[in-house]
């Protein structure tokens, strides 16, 4: 089943088209990478799907439900959660508090209960937080302020935060950016583990071609806001239009 469907998605900023007529679908259980040279509109595309920007035209269906004009927080509650590339944590709060906050959007109570609840007393959320911290190897850093984490841990925290909301689909914006080879391998493994544990599908924006080629089931290539190619990783690598779009970038495949 197509868990996410995008039809004719278009976004104009003034006279400039950041995303133009993009059609895309995400199947259940698949890992889809969205790639493209800088300025191709990948982040805008994510913003449109996750509700942070309103499309000029087009339609977005999530589990057959029209989410095109819904606000971001409602889309997240429905199970579509995205991560950010920069400014990814609550810097002044502790690592533990960051993960706890990840739960509050989806595990809601009524106002009175939320008013009376001391965050640390909620058994379920504390246990789940500990579990997530464990998965990402952050348990030792539970009480540290998130802003003081090294970069790799910060990205892990961001993904952990997204997982706390129990998403069906994860939109990851450059999840391994700035990580070392071992760190990124670990991250990808963890993400795959997530897919076995409840997350259905993953869409990534990624620059690291090695990661893309190795882990994606399918790849979509954007250039100047338009989709120029789509297919299995090997097909994409050989596609002349894709190579042309990247001309001058000089990427190396595995």
């Amino acid at each position, binding site marked *: 089943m197509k868990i996410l469907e995008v039809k004719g998605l278009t976004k104009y900023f003034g006279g400039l088209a950041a995303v133009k007529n993009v059609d895309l679908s995400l199947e259940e259980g698949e890992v889809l990478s969205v790639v493209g040279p800088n300025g191709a509109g990948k982040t805008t595309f994510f913003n449109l799907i996750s509700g*942070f920007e309103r499309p000029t035209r087009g339609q977005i269906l999530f589990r057959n439900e029209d989410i095109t004009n819904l606000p971001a927080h409602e889309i*997240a*509650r429905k199970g579509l959660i995205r*991560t*950010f590339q920069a*400014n990814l944590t609550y810097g002044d709060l502790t690592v533990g508090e960051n993960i706890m*906050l990840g739960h*509050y*959007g989806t595990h809601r*109570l009524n106002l009175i209960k939320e008013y009376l609840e001391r965050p640390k007393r909620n058994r379920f959320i504390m246990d789940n937080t500990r579990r997530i911290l464990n998965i990402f190897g952050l348990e030792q850093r539970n009480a540290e302020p998130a802003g003081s984490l090294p970069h790799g841990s910060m990205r892990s925290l961001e993904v952990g935060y997204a997982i706390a909301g129990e998403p069906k689909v994860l939109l990851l914006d450059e999840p391994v950016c700035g990580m070392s080879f071992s760190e990124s391998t670990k991250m990808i493994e963890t993400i795959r583990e997530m897919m076995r544990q409840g997350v259905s599908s993953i869409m990534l924006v990624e620059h690291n071609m090695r990661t893309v080629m190795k882990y994606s089931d399918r790849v979509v290539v954007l250039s100047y806001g338009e989709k120029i190619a789509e297919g299995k990783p090997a097909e994409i690598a050989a596609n002349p239009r894709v190579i042309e779009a990247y001309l001058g970038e000089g990427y190396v495949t595995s």
Partner: protein
Amino acid sequence: MERFGYKEISFSAVVAFFLIFPVIAAKEPYLLHILIIVAVYTTLVWGLDLLLDCALISCSQIAFWGMGSYTFALLTLKCGWNPWLALIGAGVVPTIMSALLSYSSVNLKTMYWCLFSLVFAVAFHEMLFVWRTFLGGAEGIRGIPKLPLVTSRTEWYYLAFFLLFLIGAVIHQLRGSRIGLILRGVRINEELARSAGISIIRCRLVCLVLANFFAGIMGGFFAAYTGALSPFNLELDAMFFLYVYLIVGGKGSLAGCLAGTALFIFIRELLGPLGIYMPVIYGTIVIIFVTLIPGGLVSLPQRFLSHFERVKAPT
């Protein structure tokens, strides 16, 4: 660990002080009056501080306070309500008004929302002057009934202090609860909060309802206490002064707001005859605090302590 004890002790000391104060001030009932005023304004500043948790800079807190006062006056004078019920009504009316306004404004970004609230406050203020028949115009309303059971100034003082404590407790519980953690997160990184499904609108509405309800209740209290109302209390200047108290005392801190309010009200009393110098002095204090001591008075002991610790431990 030491700092934990410091907070508990100072809180108990402050509460004890407030409780015993009427005995100390037995010869000077005017001092009780000043503290009552401090209590009233402190709750308004607390409301502002609460709204700041949602990145809302309100310019209409005084207006809602005034709305509460006028509601109390009208309910008791013109409708013959029981004053205690009217007090509740004084809290409810501004809350409803604020909810109506929020229908279109709750999505606005901080600066725009701020101007929006400012324009509302000005409009409300003008309306008080112009609507002579219903609201008394520039002369205001007189002869407002008092609250039964509250007769002496000391009893007014304890009522004010009780309300102050109650409101403070509600806000304190809020900040320590799940909602409080959500608010802290939202204030640090709003986008991130939205991406996990947290509704900013809901946060804003919660804070607005609380802040305006408290402002209304204290407005009703004020109307009952003073017995007469005039629109001149509600000038925009009064509103801006609240922010002065807030920033000098320390934003984000209940104790800070109390300290800032108390400080300035006392300064105003002391400087009475030198009134003409007040604005310049206030202005200079504000500019100095905003640029050099952004955490306000309450942040000073912390800064002093950490400086001291740095000096103490050379290795």
